[in-house]
């Protein structure tokens, strides 16, 4: 639907023509959900056809970004690495969360690297209300206003996310597609075919859908609530190293402690430290990293005593850091964080430093 509307808007025959350049980005999550190479190519082809310009003369680029690129490193099989990473989360809810973050980051990184100033997504009111409740259940309440803001003046390092279908219900979009004879391409998700009560996301989705069926104002009521919340200030450079969300004051303090406690040659990421550099929600998800029993309990371990799950201790014994299992951008984020922290310290003592002539 979004593509169709965009076509309408830029079409020379449209009654309101707005001119801007736009491209289509398709994040191929096929490897994460177990599609074969052929299936992935087929799906990408279908999406490309779907987005192929119906208006001649429109120069629209079509990009395919395989999700596993976030793990691309010399001489390693990035598909396998990504699958290992996702499978390391021993709870379906945590795996879903990790996948969503990979997609989100892939979009933003692509936009930043290719100098796109805006990203337009087709998230509907129904999607967004489900997402809001899911994030509340996962402890990320602080960042919720950023999920639903329409034209958010704050940007992700220069990239703004626009959600023009924010007011439309999934049902309305389905009607539109039916009327306009548009056929969406089905791409399976990590939870496709799993039981209703298997993950937080699935439960919330089912809950909102059935509530909406009985109380038709549910979805919009949820979004109106979030619109009344204050949008966190995105101008800070110190974000969660895993999901890049804005940190609360407490989370930022804990991150600062973790960075300041680092010494040269330290393993940057025992799970404990990674947890401290992340937001509350990611810290919770990391609890399920290679551990199904949530015994590491990162959130409750406020002291510095290393309290790691079995996997992490084994990893350290092997002389590897757990960071090697994470997407490359997490590593980059940590290094950036350390650099920024040093710069901040340097600035605070700058008047006492003698510059080389």
């Amino acid at each position, binding site marked *: 639907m979004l593509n169709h509307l965009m076509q309408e808007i830029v079409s020379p025959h449209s009654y309101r023509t707005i001119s801007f350049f736009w491209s289509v980005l398709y994040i191929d999550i096929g490897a994460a959900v177990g599609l074969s190479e052929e299936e992935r190519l087929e799906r990408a082809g279908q999406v490309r056809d779907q987005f192929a310009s119906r208006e001649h003369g429109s120069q629209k680029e079509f990009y395919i970004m395989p999700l596993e690129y976030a793990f691309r490193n010399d001489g390693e099989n990035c598909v396998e690495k990504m699958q290992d990473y996702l499978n390391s989360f021993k*709870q379906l*809810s945590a795996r879903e969360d990790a996948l969503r973050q990979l997609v989100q980051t892939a979009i933003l990184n692509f936009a930043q690297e290719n100098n796109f100033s805006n990203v337009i997504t087709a998230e509907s009111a129904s999607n967004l209300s489900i997402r*809001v*409740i899911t*994030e*509340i*259940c*996962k*402890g*990320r*309440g*602080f960042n*919720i206003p950023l999920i639903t803001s329409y034209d958010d003046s704050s940007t992700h390092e220069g990239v703004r996310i626009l959600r023009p279908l924010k007011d439309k219900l999934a049902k309305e979009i389905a009607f539109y597609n039916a009327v306009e004879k548009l056929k969406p391409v089905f791409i399976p998700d990590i939870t496709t075919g799993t039981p209703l*009560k*298997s*993950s*937080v996301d699935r*439960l*919330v989705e089912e*809950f909102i859908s059935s*509530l909406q069926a009985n*109380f038709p104002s*549910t979805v919009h*009521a*949820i979004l*109106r*609530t*979030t619109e*009344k*919340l*204050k949008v*966190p200030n995105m101008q800070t450079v110190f974000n969660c190293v895993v999901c890049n969300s804005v940190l*609360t004051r407490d989370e930022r303090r804990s991150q600062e402690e973790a960075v300041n406690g680092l010494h040269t040659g330290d393993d940057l990421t025992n799970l404990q430290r990674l947890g401290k550099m992340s937001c*509350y*929600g990611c810290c*919770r998800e990391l*609890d399920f990293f290679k551990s199904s*029993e*949530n*015994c590491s*309990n990162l959130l409750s371990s406020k002291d510095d005593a290393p309290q790691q799950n079995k996997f992490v201790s084994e990893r350290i014994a092997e002389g590897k850091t757990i960071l090697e299992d994470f997407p490359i951008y997490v590593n980059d984020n940590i290094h950036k964080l350390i650099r920024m922290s040093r710069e901040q310290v340097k600035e605070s003592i700058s008047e006492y430093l003698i510059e080389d002539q």
Partner: protein
Amino acid sequence: MNGKSCVRCGNKAQLKRPKTGELICKECFFVVFETEVHETITSSNLFSRGERVAIAASGGKDSTVLAHIMKVLNDRHDYGLELFLLSIDEGITGYRDDSLESVKRNKEEYQLPLEIVSYEQLYGWTMDAIVAQIGMKNNCTFCGVFRRQALDRGCELLKVDKMVTGHNADDVAETVLMNVLRGDIARLQRCVAIVTHDESGGYIPRAKPFKYTYEKEIVMYAYFKKLDYFSTECIYSPNAYRGFARELIKDLERVRPQCIVDIIRSAETFQFDTVNIRKQVISRCEKCAYISSQKICRACVFLEGLNSGKAKLSVFESEGKTQKSKARRVEEEEKVERSKVSILNADW
């Protein structure tokens, strides 16, 4: 679970903690349960030495465990509090009369003074009589408004400085979701506060020492300690919309127990735009002098409705102008019903 050992002491584990999934023995469970409540009390500075504190006691599991644990912690950690039990008798036959019996037994067991305030004595109406007039729909609204005021009146009688209620983590998480679903931003802001009070001192501060305590653990504690409580739900229909939220919380807990505390955490980190929240101007009700944001408090509006036989109408009228049209509709429906009655009478 057979043969597994307690993660704390190494003895045989007897249960899996609902909150964390840890395998633990009974004695260690008592210790962690009590310690966590104590930590909540001290880290939030809930009480000061020498305070008189009323425990809102319904006879149910939450308030029975609350009474037990307040007594235990007050003695063990020498909080220096003077404790009282405060019960409200809503006048619901087959429910409240039985649960009050268990409160009376608790009074004897913990040697705490008990004050019972009844709707009948305060308002001249029991819930049985109210339901007889208005039916099952909306009766919880009446009960809620009356109970709130009745608890405050009870606190005045006992001359206490604070009241503690047995609201647990599940209740708080459920209320958070409810307020998000309803778009009630003012209540959303208030509902996660561990102490709610009115700055002008209009009513006694209320604290929730079980704010982070899981309902399942409260049941477990009551079960292992063999506490005497009454476990029947209120016989008048529960709020349907709230029921949905409750069910979601239960399902979420099954998938990921940490969700409950994470929902509370989320609500604690919400930032509110004060511009969007209508600040309540608290004054006194012209009729009963109870604190109210309107000229006449909701309890008095409801009472007037009950006494004049137009109780259904008063529910909408008390909710402000936006509900006026609904109120008119109800008034018309009632007129029709009255005319039906008169027709029936005429037939006779």
